[in-house]
């Protein structure tokens, strides 16, 4: 490094101390995130100090309480008007507390709560050596099938670390859509990604697949975040700042006091465009849009089903929140550049997800592809670039996430000797054997298919309407076509469950504890309420549909 550089560093560092004023943190408005993160840390301590027997209860209690508290905090903030009138940038411009942020945080927290319920479920697997077990490995470190594993099972170990991990992930997700500068964005991304990688690896059954899923997710995730980071770097290089507001000003050229360096980089659109593209790509990876979707099926299939459910719901919410903020706050000046591209992505995602799903034979993979297709639908709302677009996406995310959690929760119930019976052929005649479960699952499938009077339809209508008003009629047509295709495989599952004869050695339906029941019931209720009387929630999303800049 040249002497000049060193000198300049020195002079910068040598600025008088009194110029630095202590950072001002609005703890109240950050409370949801802080509560969850704090609880996560406590959770780690619990792992360290609480005796093994009572850890499970302590962790479950802690998680539920903290999430509930955080949710209460979100509600409180929203009711105090922090979502609308008092919305603002906090933590020295690092974090935005506004309508979308609060709405998505609320959604994530509820999803997380339900996630905790499904995590804590211990009635599904048969009792091993006299102690109830959940769907996580007794000891993730022990080699599958080895003596140490048997020993761990015998000793009744449980991986209660999943709860703090879950809390960390939720914390990151809460931060992700609220992040108001690129650094925070990146950190939040990692904070919720890393725990998820681990959570994928700790399935109790089919551990090899679980580990494989984790590896794939991890490597590809790291790969993607590298892209994200490079995009961040380029954007930073272009705008000379990581704060959304500044970048936005630079992008639409409304910035004052242009330094010569800035003037130089501003001239270089390549920085901006490439950076934006790479950053967006990182987010598209998280939402599972084609062609960045390929991790989704494998990971969804391999991961422990409760994790899959949580991941499918919450990750999408967080990632789409971040994407929205990025596109609406940072890059509106660029919309003529990214809209066509996003059009294309949305179209291939809708069609790709729907088409490939047709020939799936594993229920979890099927849902994975359906989630891809749904990502496409949501993108259709994203590119509307209107207030309606934002609120429709928010609504869709809310509607979608609970259906997803519910659906995966149902998947955990259908079991045979080898654990969950996820192969479709095993679901044949489920409707004959246990009509209620099949009916509930059918409701979820119909919601996915977007049949009227379910939340899926309201959501789909909202986003398509927004897209059409945004002049994206083509997207709407492709959308309805792909939902027609998608309908086909949802119907196939229903046919399988109701119209084909049950196999004699078919799976049994385990009777879950109130925890899972709550998760499923909540899913059903949300599905129907949002389907029949969505107005209130549409209003909510509508009020929340304004980003603070």
């Amino acid at each position, binding site marked *: 490094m040249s002497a000049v550089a060193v000198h300049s560093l020195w002079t910068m560092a040598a600025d008088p101390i009194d110029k630095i004023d202590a950072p001002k943190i609005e703890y109240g408005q950050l409370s949801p995130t802080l509560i969850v993160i704090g609880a996560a840390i406590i959770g780690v301590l619990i792992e360290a100090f609480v005796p093994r027997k009572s850890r499970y209860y302590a962790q479950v209690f802690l998680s539920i309480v903290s999430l509930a508290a955080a949710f209460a905090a979100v509600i409180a903030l929203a009711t105090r008007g922090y979502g609308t009138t008092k919305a603002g940038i906090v933590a020295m411009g690092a974090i935005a507390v506004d309508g979308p942020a609060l709405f998505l945080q609320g959604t994530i927290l509820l999803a997380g709560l339900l996630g905790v319920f499904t995590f804590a479920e211990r009635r599904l697997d048969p009792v091993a050596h006299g102690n109830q077990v959940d769907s996580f490995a007794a000891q993730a470190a022990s080699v599958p099938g080895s003596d140490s594993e048997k020993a761990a099972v015998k000793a009744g170990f449980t991986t209660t670390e999943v709860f703090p991990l879950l809390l960390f992930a939720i914390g990151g997700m809460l931060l992700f859509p609220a992040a108001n500068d690129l650094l925070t964005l990146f950190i939040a991304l990692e904070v919720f990604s890393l725990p998820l990688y681990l959570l994928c690896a700790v399935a109790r059954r089919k551990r090899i697949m679980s580990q494989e899923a984790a590896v794939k997710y991890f*490597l*590809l995730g790291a790969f*993607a975040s590298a892209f994200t980071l490079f995009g961040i770097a380029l954007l930073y290089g272009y705008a000379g700042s990581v704060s959304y507001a500044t970048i936005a000003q630079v992008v639409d050229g409304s910035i004052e006091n242009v330094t010569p360096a800035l003037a130089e980089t501003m001239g270089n659109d390549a920085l901006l465009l490439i950076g934006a593209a790479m950053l967006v790509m990182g987010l598209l990876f998280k939402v599972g849009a084609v062609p960045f979707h390929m991790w989704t099926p*494998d990971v969804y299939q391999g991961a422990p089903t409760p994790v899959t459910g949580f991941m499918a719901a919450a990750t999408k919410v967080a990632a789409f929140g971040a994407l929205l903020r990025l596109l609406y706050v940072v890059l509106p000046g660029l919309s003529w550049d990214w809209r066509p*591209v996003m059009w294309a992505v949305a179209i291939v995602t809708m069609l790709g997800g729907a088409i490939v799903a047709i020939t799936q034979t594993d229920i979890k993979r099927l849902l994975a592809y359906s989630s891809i297709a749904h990502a496409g639908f949501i993108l259709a709302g994203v590119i509307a670039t209107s207030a309606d677009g934002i609120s429709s996406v928010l609504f869709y995310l809310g509607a979608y996430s609970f259906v997803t959690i519910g659906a995966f929760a149902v998947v955990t119930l259908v079991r045979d000797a080898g654990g969950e019976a996820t192969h479709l052929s095993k679901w044949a005649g489920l409707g004959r054997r246990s009509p209620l479960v099949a009916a509930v699952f059918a409701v979820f499938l119909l919601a996915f298919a977007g049949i009227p009077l379910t939340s899926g339809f309201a959501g789909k209508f909202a986003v398509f309407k927004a897209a059409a008003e945004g002049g994206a009629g083509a997207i709407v047509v492709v959308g309805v076509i792909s939902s027609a295709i998608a309908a086909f495989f949802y119907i196939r599952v229903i046919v399988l469950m109701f119209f084909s004869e049950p196999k004699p050695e078919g799976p049994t339906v385990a009777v879950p504890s109130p925890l899972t029941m709550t998760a499923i019931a909540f899913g059903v209720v949300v599905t129907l309420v949002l389907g029949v009387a969505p107005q209130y929630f549409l209003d909510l999303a509508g009020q929340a549909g304004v980003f603070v800049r």
Partner: protein
Amino acid sequence: MENLIALLVVAPLLGAAVLLCGGRRLDAVGHWIGTVLAAASFVIGAILFADMLGKGAEEREMTQHLFSWVPVEGFQADVAFQLDQLSMTFVLLISGVGSLIHVYSIGYMEHDERRRRFFGYLNLFLAAMLLLVLADNYLLLYVGWEGVGLASYLLIGFWQHKPSAATAAKKAFLVNRVGDMGLSIAIMLMFAWFGTFAFGPVLEATGETSEGKLTAIGLMLLLAACGKSAQVPLQSWLGDAMEGPTPVSALIHAATMVTAGVYLIVRSGAIFNGAPDAQLAVTVVGAVTLLFGAIVGCAKDDIKKALAGSTMSQIGYMILAAGLGPIGYVFAIMHLVTHGFFKAGLFLGAGSVMHGMNDEVDMRKYGGLRKYMPVTFVTFGLGYLAIIGFPGLSGFFSKDKIIEAAFAKGGTEGWILGGVALLGAAITAYYMTRVMLMTFFGEERWRHAPTPSPAEPSVEPAAETHGEHAEPHPHESPSSMTIPMIVLAFGSVFAGAFFGIGDRFIHWLEPVTGHAHGHPPVSALTVTLSTVAVMVIGVGLAYAQYGRRPVPVVAPRGSLLTRAARRDLLQDDFNHVVLVRGGEHLTRSLVYVDHTLVDGVVNGTAASMGGLSGRLRRLQNGFARSYAVSMFGGAAVLIAATLLMRAV
């Protein structure tokens, strides 16, 4: 008085309803109910007739408006009746002959356990037929028109267990439907052009309409008439219709229903008067049919089918007359009435013969029956004389008039039509004499054990009717059957004279149909004499062929024409090849198309979607690195696209 008109229809309709819904408990009395109600409508008809006679010629028409049937914007169809002299003539004929045949059926259907139902159908027929002739608009007429079609369908197929009967019934209905198409199109044309289809307005409006339109309507009406009256080219059903019980053949397929076409044309006279071409078509159809039917009648060995052929040809006469316009209308109706008497009589006679001969219909297995069934013989004989136009009997008057009128048409047409009519008269005499001789004279061919007839089953289905092949014991029929025959015989003897002498009938109908005196190129007397002459020739020929030599029990192969005539001049074969086979092929291929093409397209898209899915699915090969490649490529494309967007 007008309010009685509805009763004419209601009475038999009521009968039909009661009998068909009544169920088994009415089996015992069913036939009486039916007969009484038929008679009732005859009585009402008589009362109205008397009342009508009491009035002057002009105010004899009465109408009764019951209710508005289909009131739709710009479309008024009412259920309303119109009873004028024309309708009255039919009412009396229908209800009169109808009642007689009811009586006859009591005896004839005695041993049939479904007799109640039979009477129900008969009543249904009466109701429909009366509706047809009483309606005051074409749409209501159409109801009666199809109603009689239904009744005839039910009655032809009355012995449904016989596939032949069921087929014949279906055939009759279908062929009629083709005709009905004509009627409905005619109604549509009227509505489109006149905005109405009630007789009054339409017939008035004809004055202000172009000839072309009237011709169109006329031809459509002719099509309808052909279907109902078994005229060429829609005549094929009548022969098979003989599958029905004989009273049915007598009532529906001789006396009344088949004459509906004549009624339609005469009723629509105003339209045809305005459309010479249509009239010509009518006369041609009539002429062709009268020869066609006559020829067929000569070849048939089945007594009923022979009579059926004759019916066809006689109606040909009527149609011909109707086609002649005002000079012919009256005679058409007159011949219709007289024909109603003698043809019904002949059929009842035939029925009575069959009754005595174990339902054998093959005349070659008859012979010398006159001494076994004298009454039948006498009545049948009188009917025979009447139909061949023996001077003084009713057929003579009516047919002769028609032939005159045909000549009176004038020009070559006149000569041709008249010639055809004369020729027809000769052939009529021939085949009727043949029937007479084969049935009642000659040696008793039924003596030796009857062999199952070798002739093709299509011609001889009735032979296995009740299947017993014991030697028959011919005997006279019960009085319930003979009395109607006697009454009809009276009709066939005197009706003609009663109508013809002093132009009574002309004066009676003139106000409705109008009448013009035709002047044949030769004197009326010449025509009459030649008619008689050809009649004598015909009889002579027949006698030479069937009276002198014995009749072979097994039909000889016969000339080409004979064989063709036995097969209804190959008309059925034509239908079979062209319509039935063709239709079968068409439908079969369409079914195939529907399954492969129309459905195939959809299933094809579904399949191809599946195939595409399968192919895309293989990209998901489980290798993390290939996933990374797709991400990398995706990122590259994304970047390139963004830059491109800016570039363009």
